[in-house]
């Protein structure tokens, strides 16, 4: 034997381990928001719970009504959550008997639709690139034509946003795509367009963040003008400034999102459990990157295995040495 087997195995294993664990492959860098990112600002203190946004969303995205659990009723679309047929919903928090809005023992409204994450788990985990993030607008889109229906995105999304139509013979994933099909016609997100109080506001994320800063700097109780529809709109709604909590949902969650929420009650009351700042997509891709970077470690490991397997196979009479055919003949009798 040329090289001592044990030493060789050790070297091979050591090399693979080193390439896997200690290689200079850093964690993947943090994703930045695209320059032209657009999104929504949802200010729960302005929402009156009229659900006009839900109605407009269904009309503009051709979604079927859901006659949910309101017993015996087929009169109106009454989804209780987002689903394969509902991609935007307004939910209410009720904390106590008080009829005062935006208080802990009163009630409050919140919205759930895709947050269009800067570093989206669904984009990272989709095996066929059906989930994509636009490099300019940052909109996270879904392609039914590419999708294989594995539902990894449904399972992985920290916001529980992508949904699946289990009731269909030919099922598909449904999620908000920020009405990107309307943008081609010069329009914008339908939910923001129809919102009567400007609670849902569409615009470039940079501008939305300035508007958030402006609202938070105002004195609670004073009146101010809130733009309706999209940022910079001359169509405004005049109302009182709420006492915002010091947390903008989506600013840091999961590495940041393009849909931002303002509220006067803590977000954990609004079905928004605390989330880490680090994107799980980054953790996952860094780990995979460490193992598979340039396929160096797997190829080195394979090389070692080939050499070792060849020797062992030979020793076992499996490598086709001269007398083996006879042995085979004998066996075959």
């Amino acid at each position, binding site marked *: 034997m040329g090289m001592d*087997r044990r030493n060789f195995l050790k070297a091979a294993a050591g090399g693979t381990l080193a390439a896997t664990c200690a290689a200079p492959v850093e964690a993947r860098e943090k994703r930045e928001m695209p320059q032209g990112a657009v999104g929504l600002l949802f200010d729960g203190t302005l929402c009156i719970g009229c659900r006009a946004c839900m109605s407009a969303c269904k009309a503009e995205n051709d979604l079927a009504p859901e006659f949910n659990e309101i017993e015996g009723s087929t009169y109106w679309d009454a989804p209780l959550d987002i689903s*394969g047929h509902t991609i935007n919903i307004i939910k209410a928090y009720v904390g106590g008997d008080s009829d005062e809005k935006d208080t802990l023992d009163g009630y409050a409204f919140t919205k759930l639709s895709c947050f269009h994450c800067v570093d989206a788990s669904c984009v*990272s*985990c*989709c*095996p*066929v690139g059906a989930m994509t993030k636009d490099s300019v607008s940052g909109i996270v889109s879904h392609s*039914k034509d*590419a999708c*294989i*229906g*594995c*539902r*990894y995105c449904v*399972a*992985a999304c*920290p916001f*529980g946003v992508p949904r*699946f*139509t*289990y*009731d*269909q*013979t*030919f*099922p*598909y994933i449904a999620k908000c795509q920020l009405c990107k099909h309307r943008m081609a016609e010069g329009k914008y997100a339908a939910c923001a367009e129809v919102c009567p109080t400007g609670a849902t506001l569409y615009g470039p994320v940079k501008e939305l963040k300035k508007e958030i800063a402006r609202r938070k700097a105002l004195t609670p109780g004073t009146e101010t003008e809130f733009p309706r529809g999209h940022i910079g709109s001359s169509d405004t709604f005049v109302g009182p400034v709420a006492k915002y909590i010091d947390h903008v949902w989506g600013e840091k969650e999961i590495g940041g999102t393009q849909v931002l929420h303002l509220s006067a009650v803590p977000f954990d009351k609004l*079905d928004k*459990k605390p989330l880490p700042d680090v994107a*799980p*997509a980054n*953790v*996952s*891709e860094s*780990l*995979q990157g460490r*193992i598979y970077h340039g396929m160096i470690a*797997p190829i080195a*490991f*394979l090389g070692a*295995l*080939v050499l*070792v*397997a*060849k020797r*062992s*196979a030979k020793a*076992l*009479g*499996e*490598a*086709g040495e001269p*007398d*083996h*055919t006879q*042995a*085979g003949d*004998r*066996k*075959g009798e």
Partner: protein
Amino acid sequence: MAGSDAHPAPAPLGGKLITPWTVFLGLLSLIGLFFIGKRLIFGIGAVSNINDGYPWGIWMVYDLVIGAALSCGGFAMALVVYVFNKGRYHPLVRPALLASLFGYTLAATSLFFDLGRYWNFWHVFWPRYAQVNSVIFELAVCMTAYILVMWIEFTPTVMEKFGMYGLRKKLEKWLFFFIALGVLLPAMHQSSLGSMLVIFGEQIHPLWQTPVLPLLFLISCLAMGYSMVIFEASVSSVGFRRPLEMDIFSGVGQVLKWFLIAYLVARFGDLIWRGALGYAFVPGIRSVMFWIENILVVIPLVLLWTPRLRRNPQKLFLAAVAMALQGMIYRINCYFTAYVTGDGWNYFPSLPEMMVSLGFIAMEILAFIIVVRLLPVLPAQEPAPKAAAAS
């Protein structure tokens, strides 16, 4: 003589193919196929209880994640025989490989029917669609490649049956390459079955969510592989009325022991290092399941501790069953118990859903029985093998 190893050459078992057992397995397979048909016509929801809170049910977690791990016998034996050059275990390679071959093929088939848009499945292998950051991409490509490799590794057995010795000799010249792939590929995708959960982030409880998931899944699948080799041989020896070669199997038990120790060190070392062990003492379903999962590692470890214990077929069998169960519960915990999916969601598999999984298991066992009766897989027995198997 067949080289330096003095093992009996593999030979077909022979015997009847139609027995009450095979008929029963055939019926189970048909019931499973019926519900697969229903799923194809009326959609997944008509058969399965999965929902948006639990988008992955037993077809994913049992058939694929657990099924593939239970099929690691071929991987585990290849590692011992070809990498660590322990030739005396060579007679175990063929039956283990065959069981793995069917296990993996059916895991992949079952995954195909679990895909909502199965007609697009080829996108995973198509450069225009393939998304390399996805752990499922790695899994799909690597598992498919491994299934092909196992079929290639198994062809010499088929060639032997049909007397194609010239062709077999040509193939065997290159077999070492496929043997090497047959160790690399499962090492890659079995660890990926753990990595798949990393992107779930805080949706997986800290007792299970860790960057060493791939390592734990890898050690665990090998331990399960050795257990299944012992389990399948024990069952075969009873079912086909053949003696169990305790010399060899107590050796497998010893290998298993070392994997159990490695697993415990990695599992608890990680929990202590991350400071997450405290959660194991918070009352609730998660801590209970955590302790069941880990006590099931300690049981086989105790059963396998001394050479005397390992030579006892009952103890060895019990240890193998405990360890296989442990691997199943570990995976169920990772994918279900640990999954923090939000309030109001429930999942328990429906009867038709379970019948599909059972149907696949039945098909696998049925195929194994048929093949070992017709092809030279199991080592020939000294006293007239055909008479012993003709029961």
